[in-house]
């Protein structure tokens, strides 16, 4: 796993300061079929390659971040504040 996460608020910090929630996925519509919600909540791809995840900087600024990283090379492509993606 990537060792240094460039937090947009705190600068580069070790992964030990963060808590990983899991994949950052688009949320289904409130009235979407149960099967779609079931997939959203429980089913994950576990890809080898690029992956977008929600990370919480629990040991630092305590903001939720979206970390785009590569699970094979450990490269971190981008880290943004999750609030920035809200409409």
């Amino acid at each position: 796993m990537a060792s240094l996460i460039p937090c947009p608020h705190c600068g580069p910090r070790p992964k030990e300061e963060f808590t990983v929630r899991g994949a950052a996925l688009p949320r289904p519509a409130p009235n979407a079929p149960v099967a779609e919600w079931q997939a959203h909540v429980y089913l994950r791809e576990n890809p080898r390659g690029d992956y977008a995840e929600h990370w919480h900087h629990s040991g630092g600024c305590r903001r939720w971040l979206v970390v785009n990283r590569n699970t094979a090379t450990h490269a971190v492509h981008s880290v943004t504040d999750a609030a920035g993606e809200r409409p």
Partner: protein
Amino acid sequence: MPDTVLIARPALASAATGHFGAPGTGVTLAALPEDRLWQALARPGTDPAPMLAYGAGRCPLRSIGPGQWLIVGVGTGTLAEAQAALAPTFALSDQTHGRMRVSLSGPRAADLLAKGTAVNLALLPEGGAAQTLFGHIGITLARTGPEAFELAVLRGFALSLWDELILLGREYGIEARA
């Protein structure tokens, strides 16, 4: 009459003091008075300048994230008065009882801190602060001088942090004063 009587006691009352490790004093560790410490919240991007009046010292206002600050100091006035003056932009809560501060100074203070935290201390300016982990203990690190730092820590972790700092400082020679 309440069944339980709460006794006010300094968090580091039983802390080890004296000189430890190598000869000389590369680092001095000292407990700071448990004076006022508030936490403030606001919308990210808010200018914290109005809160400066309520802090004191070399680093009165410590940014611990977007729209989050610690206010340290010995100023006058109650929390309620400050909250009334700063509302609705800022929300304050009193953390005096919840956190305490220790100072770490000396020519090797930065070397000692580098053993426990990944914050780049060379880039931390005087008066700057960073919320981080020291080992597994969450701290608010502030730089109060070229070779002087302050660590604000949750009260229950203060003694653990104190012992850890002494252990890690032995190779530099460390003087601990409660």
